[in-house]
């Protein structure tokens, strides 16, 4: 499949601080990729380098085969960006802002724009100064979606949105995926990434520590098992692969890494009335990776 985004050894240092460390990452056309990491892991730095707003210390980024630093205008014709903070011109109205940003981009699907204004319940005659934070964010979202770009670069795009609008956003990203648009979504909202993304990349202290589909990443965390017993509760702490055993009355909860066979054998002799097992959620995967603490304060 053709490549939408390619990063090769992309590195950004601010003095002694390494914000991004030799990042290699490819995103295929039409793919929806989530980009996760704690505050300061380098997510925004990555996106600003791709947009040509920051200059890399080493390495390079390409979008649709065009160099992000050398051909920014050509690159920008094919993408739209949504930042997490909507710093707009306070004296313009929402409608004026959309008109301006659309004209600057050069192509707007006007019918879709009007539909988005409806869907996000925006009053375009209101001045930006008078909008709430969430409404300002909606303007930025509509401005990005209305140009139907080949690539959507989203940096925590749902900041300040209420659950209804968050739902509307997910719907729009689903539509974009249906139209074959590529989406690169940096987010803190793990359920959003889990619901929308084909692949997830996890960044830690400027390095990409994991990238893959959710199924591929399940190995990062353990299976959660909850067993209820009718009779005596067996000792499970010595069973190979079993950890974090917690007992509450006749209920035992534990985590299993690797093969589940040793646990099943141990349970076979006990009087099990109910057995529930669950795959780890993205949140559990994320926490498993960051159990030791994140890279707070390393980069923007």
């Amino acid at each position: 499949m053709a490549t939408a985004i390619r990063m090769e050894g992309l590195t950004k240092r601010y003095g002694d601080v390494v914000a991004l460390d030799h990042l290699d990452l490819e995103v295929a056309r039409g793919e929806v990729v989530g980009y996760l990491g704690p505050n300061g892991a380098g997510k925004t730095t990555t996106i600003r380098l791709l947009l040509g707003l920051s200059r890399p210390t080493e390495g390079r980024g390409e979008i649709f085969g065009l160099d992000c630093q050398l051909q920014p205008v050509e690159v920008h014709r094919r993408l739209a960006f949504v930042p997490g903070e909507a710093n707009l011109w306070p004296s313009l109205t929402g409608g004026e802002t959309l008109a301006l940003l659309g004209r600057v981009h050069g192509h707007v699907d006007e019918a879709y724009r009007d539909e988005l204004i409806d869907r996000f319940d925006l009053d375009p005659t209101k001045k930006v100064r008078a909008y709430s934070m969430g409404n300002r964010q909606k303007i930025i979202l509509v401005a990005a979606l209305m140009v139907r770009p080949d690539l959507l670069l989203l940096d925590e795009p749902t900041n300040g949105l209420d659950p209804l609008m968050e739902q509307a956003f997910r719907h729009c990203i689903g539509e974009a995926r249906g139209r074959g648009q590529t989406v690169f979504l940096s987010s803190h909202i793990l359920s959003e990434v889990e619901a929308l993304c084909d692949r997830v990349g996890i960044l830690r202290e400027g390095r990409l520590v994991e990238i893959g589909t959710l199924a591929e990443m399940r190995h990062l965390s353990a299976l959660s098992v909850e067993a209820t017993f009718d009779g005596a509760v067996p000792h499970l702490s010595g069973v190979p692969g079993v950890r974090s055993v917690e007992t509450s009355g006749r209920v035992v909860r534990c985590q299993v890494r690797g093969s589940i066979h040793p646990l099943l054998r141990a349970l076979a002799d006990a009087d099990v009335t109910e057995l529930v097992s669950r795959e780890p959620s993205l949140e559990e995967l994320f926490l498993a990776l960051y159990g030791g603490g994140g890279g707070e304060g390393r980069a923007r």
Partner: protein
Amino acid sequence: MHAELAVAPPVATPVRAERSPGTVVARLSARRAARSGAVWGLIFGLTIASSEVSYTRIYTTRAERDALAAAYGSNKATSALFGPAPQLQTVGGFTVFKISMTLMILGAVWGLLTSTRLLRGEEDSGRWDLLLTGQTTRRSATAQALAGLGAGAGTLWLLTAVIAVLSGRGSKVGIAAGPSLYLALALVTTAVMFLAVGTLTSQLAETRRQAASYAAIFLGVSYALRMIADAGVGLHALIWASPLGWVEELQPITAPQPLALLPIIALTAVLAAVAVHLAGIRDVGAGIVAGRSHSHPHLALLSGPTGLAIRLLRATIMAWWVAIAAAALLYGLIAKSAGATISGSSVREVFAKLGAPGTGTDAVLGVCFLVLAVLVAFVGAGQITAACAEESGGRLDHMLVRPVSRASWLSGRLVVAVTVLVLSGVGAGIFAWLGAASQHSSVGFTTLLGAGVNLVPPAIAILGIGVLAFGIRPRTTSVVVYGLLGWSFLVVIVGGIGAANHWVLDTSVFHHMASAPAVSPDWEANGIMTGIGVASALVGGLAFWRRDLQGE
């Protein structure tokens, strides 16, 4: 197996108690206001000192001092511009005449910018909300901010006073400590009044820029009233209608009139009290003068980054243009009658030292156009700081993530800036001619138009150097352009009359501008200054292209 869960007993973490949470806002404002007050106090003090020292070096004989007094003592043009000049035979009288109007206006500008920054600016940024969630109320926080601003004014006075006293003690200067302290007080009173004005307009307006504009209009009206009062057209009573007039009536050193402090104190107290009252009756974030929250779309200019720049700056640009045109018209109106009071060779000599040789209307306008040059340069400085604010506010990102290159954005802004500068210069020339022609003055239209265009190169130099700062260290842009502008003006005002070191004079962009229409514009010097501006802008543009953008 039961998981062992050890519950630790609660540990009493020592929390440092804030000794006086009710004064946090005051201390925060005081720290910020005092910092800039100290810088300006240093500038004020050094300006006084350099004026005193240069006078004692240049005007060494009685005859020279008498000649100076004859030139300016009854000159209505300089009186209108800089205030009356009653005792030019003395170092104190000369210093008051030479520097007080400039420092009064600088003090007022400092006051209105500092107060609107620390009040409405904090509210715009949302930080005020955080402060108000502490142990304070809206009124108390505003009163505290006022107290903090007062501390800033105190710092301004202290540094001005210390340097003025030290300079006055010089054997040749010989001004006692008392008059020096009073001089410092008089100079700082405008700052105090405009701190209060800015605090009030911060309650009225909805944005910082609007608040600063309201305060600037008040300053402009005050200056115009004082100017008419001092122009010798029989309206001297108007002096009492202008806050700047009251400060002038304090007459430091020459004939102290402390009673004039009464209206100054009264105005400050009333403005402060009204501001504190209004802070309590309005919503945080809103102004008393409600801005429109809805508007019909006006899309004509919103076609790209350059159109957007015009749309955003048009009100400010128009206000400056009107101010420049009005000042030019006023100068044109008074030039002939003021010029008629100048006669004799000693006068010619003094005007020549100010860069405006000759007598009559031309010479007066030559000096007046220096003030217009400063105004035009202010417009140039404002253009580049506005561009810088687009970046630091994170709004530039919205342009540059779309098919707009950094080069086209910056060059569009600079084309707008240079066009505005040229229109300002041309406007100054035309309106000065209209004023002069209405008084049947002999100065020709093309001469004054040339003099107007002559104002543009220093502003282009400042604009270009601003682009350089913006490209290399964007956070320093404002300090660099306004610092260079203030410095350049002080150097020509203080150094102009005397033989200041030519290296120092060379650092002033206004020093290289010929005093047209008193003399012909020096197109070669203008070319060099424009060249410096263009070269600086090119280097700055390259640096801007290479660096990271400063998102918010």
